[in-house]
């Protein structure tokens, strides 16, 4: 089957309608046990050391996985993606640019989606059918999220995993839905967890591993994963264009903030972990979050895939102690 990679969440409905296997290149990179080799390979090829690890990881993942077609999100994500697309196109990878319009203009977004549909030879009826199929799975993943914050039956890592997988449904929607069904049946029967502190995780998914588990050893739990939840499209929009306008990740920080503030209040959050990637422009947005949010914020920075390190642990522990004292 035709496998099509992408660099960040795109209207998945188009690829599903085209009968292609969607491949979120971030997931291919980060779930590979040798993910650091991908980064090394990219640096050997010439990527500078001070470039985002995700970009280098995606490069390595494309080269290693043999993906020959990919959609590059050229507006709404970072400009590194543009250069990545150029480099990979020189190596024979067929690339399709996709741009989220900066002003969230519906007509521009519709034109971008239709351009993608034309590239993959599908019309609106197939895309709508694909949306109905995907929305059914998204609804179930939304229930996992609700079980996380409202019923306390799901861990922060599980919440992260199921939501982050919705960007490509693990490349196999049927198998992923079955996995979700099994998990939901199990999670509903669990005894609620009792951690004292409720945390929000803001920012891109972590390149480091073990953070959620470490937090839970310290009497705290992440009950809101901002970006991962966005990947799962929890809006219930019947219109596809409106759905990708409601999606916050590719647009400005203030659009994101409206969603963040609503969820922080609803989920009774005690403190915020803002994860930033080394060399990412989103590090600058930390200033805005600190000005706009009244909750205590711990900013963590990750560079390459690794288990959560001693320094990060020290900072997380200090932060959680501070939150406990405030209670």
């Amino acid at each position, binding site marked *: 089957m035709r496998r099509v990679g992408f660099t960040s969440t795109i209207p998945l409905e188009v690829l599903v309608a085209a009968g292609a296997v969607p491949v979120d290149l971030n997931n291919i990179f980060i779930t590979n046990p040798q993910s650091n080799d991908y980064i090394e390979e990219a640096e050997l090829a010439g990527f500078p050391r001070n470039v985002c690890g995700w970009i280098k990881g995606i490069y390595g993942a494309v080269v290693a996985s043999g993906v020959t077609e990919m959609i590059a999100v050229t507006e709404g994500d970072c400009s590194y993606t543009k250069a990545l697309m150029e480099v990979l196109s020189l190596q024979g990878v067929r690339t399709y640019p996709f741009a989220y319009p900066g002003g969230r203009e519906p007509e521009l977004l519709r034109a971008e989606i239709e351009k993608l549909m034309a590239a993959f030879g599908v019309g609106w009826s197939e895309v709508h059918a694909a949306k109905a199929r995907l929305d059914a799975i998204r609804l179930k993943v939304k229930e996992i999220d609700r079980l996380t914050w409202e019923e306390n039956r799901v861990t922060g890592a599980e919440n992260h995993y199921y939501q982050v997988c919705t960007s490509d449904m693990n490349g196999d929607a049927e198998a992923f839905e079955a996995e979700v069904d099994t998990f939901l049946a199990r999670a509903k029967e669990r005894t609620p967890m009792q951690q004292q502190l409720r945390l929000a995780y803001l920012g891109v998914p972590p390149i480091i591993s073990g953070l959620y588990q470490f937090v839970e050893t310290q009497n705290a739990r992440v009950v809101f994963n901002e970006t991962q939840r966005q990947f799962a499209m929890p809006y219930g929009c019947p219109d596809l264009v409106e759905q990708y306008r409601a999606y916050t990740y590719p647009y400005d920080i203030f659009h994101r903030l409206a969603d963040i503030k609503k969820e922080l209040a609803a989920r009774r959050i005690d403190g915020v972990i803002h994860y930033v990637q080394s060399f990412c422009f989103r590090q600058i947005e930390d200033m805005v979050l600190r000005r706009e949010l009244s909750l205590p914020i711990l*900013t963590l920075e990750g560079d390459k895939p690794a288990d959560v390190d001693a320094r990060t642990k*020290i*900072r997380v522990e*200090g932060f959680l*102690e*501070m939150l406990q*004292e405030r209670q």
Partner: protein
Amino acid sequence: MTNETMNDTQKLSIGIDLGSRKAKFALLSGTEILRLQDMDTISFYKRYGRIDNDELCLDLLGSGIFSAEELDQARITVTGYGRNSINLHGARVISEIRAHVAGALFQTGLTDFTMLDMGGQDTKVAQVVSGKLADFVMNDKCAASSGRYLENMAAVLEVPLEELSRHAEEPIALDATCGIFGESELIGQILRGHPVSRLCAGVNLTLVKRVMPMLKRFPSKTLVITGGVALNGAMVSLLKEQCRMEVLVPHHPQHNGAIGCAALA
């Protein structure tokens, strides 16, 4: 001190701060500091430390820092780098930020201040409001604003740290982001014939520039500076000029974390 003189308010407590460069020790009786000591961390671990069943065992008696009687009676509290990967046998382990804030509260008697702790690798800035930690930041990924940087630069200049710590006048601008490239930048400035005193001042000023963005986050009336770098008088005076806060260095800045541990015991 004899057993007869000890009562509930004068309980013995030991605080240990295992830093990246120095292991610091404090013995308190109630609120009185009885003893402060420090040892090079590496040689301390080599001589008196071992890992047993994932627990760090320190031969505190063998180190000669505390008597058998003191170790028997005192409650021991420890903090320091790597504390979350190893448990110290028989001791309570607390976070570094908590230890340092407790030390600053104990040593200054203030309840509202900004604390700047500059150690061998770590730089922490904390805001304390009504005696409680309100927020903090720590350096991450880069330790070019640390004591180790000062040590390296002093070595390049072939001056002892005490000499480096004396000069704040007419600093030569040093701009390298990297603490290692900073060494070659300094060598270039030596060749230009600048006097060592101005180069020392330049090194001290780079440290100030690196911590200022962290300090700006937490303005207070008073800035309490702790950690070994607080012993650098020139750096402190340069910081005073820039931060517009009243600056206070407690009596024992380097032992502040150990004192905080003992105070919380």
